[in-house]
């Protein structure tokens, strides 16, 4: 299973390296979402200052959605789904592999976006630790749940619209959790943030289990 996961993840990352979609397009998209909100939420009201952690995670969420769409668009090519079913790869392995490759891409994105936020706010050492932990755990949560719902929408012609619809409400708690944890880290009260990290770990764990068992049946038909 882990061997299969590695095979899939390597293939996906190779694809990304050849096509550079995430780097050239998803990262700018995330920046864009951030800037857009600055437009919508007029800066002179002072809304933005307070809202940065929330906006950061919204930007990550939407970009994650895009990365996920791309990850499944690749598998939607003519006959690939059938080929995967016939391949003998363990569905759980495919699930873990795709999760891994999405997580790697998201991590890169988050670090690129996050350095800015952290520097602007200038946080303490413990703050840094919490920020990092939040990023890691939230990424795990987003990619485990995202990959599972990705396959629910996969193979359907309506994939592009169905995935956001299913995924966003499910990830809403992660959005809250990560935002709260970031706020705690940036406001110098990291102890308030750690419970959120715990919560998101539970979330990610639930979805890993659901994915490992659910991916097989979901891959079946389409």
């Amino acid at each position, binding site marked *: 299973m882990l061997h*299969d996961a590695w*095979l899939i993840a390597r*293939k996906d990352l*190779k*694809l990304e390296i*050849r*096509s550079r979609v995430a780097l050239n397009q998803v990262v700018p998209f995330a920046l864009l979402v951030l800037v857009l909100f600055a437009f919508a939420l007029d800066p002179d009201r002072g809304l933005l200052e307070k809202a940065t952690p929330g906006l950061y995670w919204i930007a990550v969420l939407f970009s994650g959605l895009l990365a996920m769409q791309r990850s499944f668009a*690749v598998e939607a*090519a*003519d*006959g*690939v789904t*059938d*080929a*995967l*079913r*016939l*391949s*003998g*790869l363990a569905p759980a392995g495919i699930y873990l592999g795709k999760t891994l490759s999405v997580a790697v891409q998201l991590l890169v994105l988050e670090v690129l976006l996050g350095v800015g936020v952290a520097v602007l706010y200038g946080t303490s050492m413990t703050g840094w630790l919490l920020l990092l932990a939040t990023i890691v755990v939230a990424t795990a949560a987003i990619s485990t749940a995202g990959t599972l719902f990705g396959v629910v929408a996969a193979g359907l012609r309506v994939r592009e619209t169905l995935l956001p619809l299913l995924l966003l409400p499910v990830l809403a708690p992660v959005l809250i959790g990560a935002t709260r944890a970031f706020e705690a880290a940036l406001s110098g009260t990291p102890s308030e943030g750690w419970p959120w990290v715990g919560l998101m770990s539970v979330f990610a764990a639930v979805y890993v289990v659901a994915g490992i068992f659910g991916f097989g049946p979901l891959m079946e*038909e389409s």
Partner: protein
Amino acid sequence: MVHLRGAVALLGRFPALAGVDLDVDRRRIVLLRGANGAGKTTLLRALAGLVPISAGEAIVLGVDLRVDHKSVRPRVGLLAHGAGLYDELSVADNVRFWTLAAGAVLADAESAMARLGLDGRLSDVSVGRLSTGQRRRTSLACLIARRPELWLLDEPHAGLDKEGRDVVDELVRDAADAGATIILSSHELDRAIDLADEIVTLGGGVALDDSGAGGDGHVA
């Protein structure tokens, strides 16, 4: 190897297979023919465990498909209309990926590519850039690298040039000699009839009684 009795398969609500009877022994090469929409592709996909059989008997490679349609999958090789390749990866990357995914070793991938003439300039070209016939060759290379027990070839000659067709025929004969079973569909009867040991004609989702055939659709 394959035993179907009254097999029914639904695509949506449409009974694309409406009660097919089919028996194929080991090492045999069987040609499926029939009009467009007769059910050839559906039958091949059903035998690969990709389309569920909803009524009748269906035993493939000793596995009852109605009980378990997954365990035959790694043991069959299906050449379908969809290429099953990642357009953005190169030919070599694709063949290697599918070879490893099937549990075979990289050397198999190399020899398969060589066999299909994909080892030169082409091996580094992205699959999305290939011509139709070259894509088809790549799919075939992925298939043979898996060394399946049951080959399901949906119009294997289509899109290939003369030399490619000869390679396919050779591959099929070699595989049969090596103990595999081959079922192929084709509209290019001249070529396919020479290759096949048996001919089954499908029509309206069932195996029709064949001219010169035994009662249950067998041709000597």
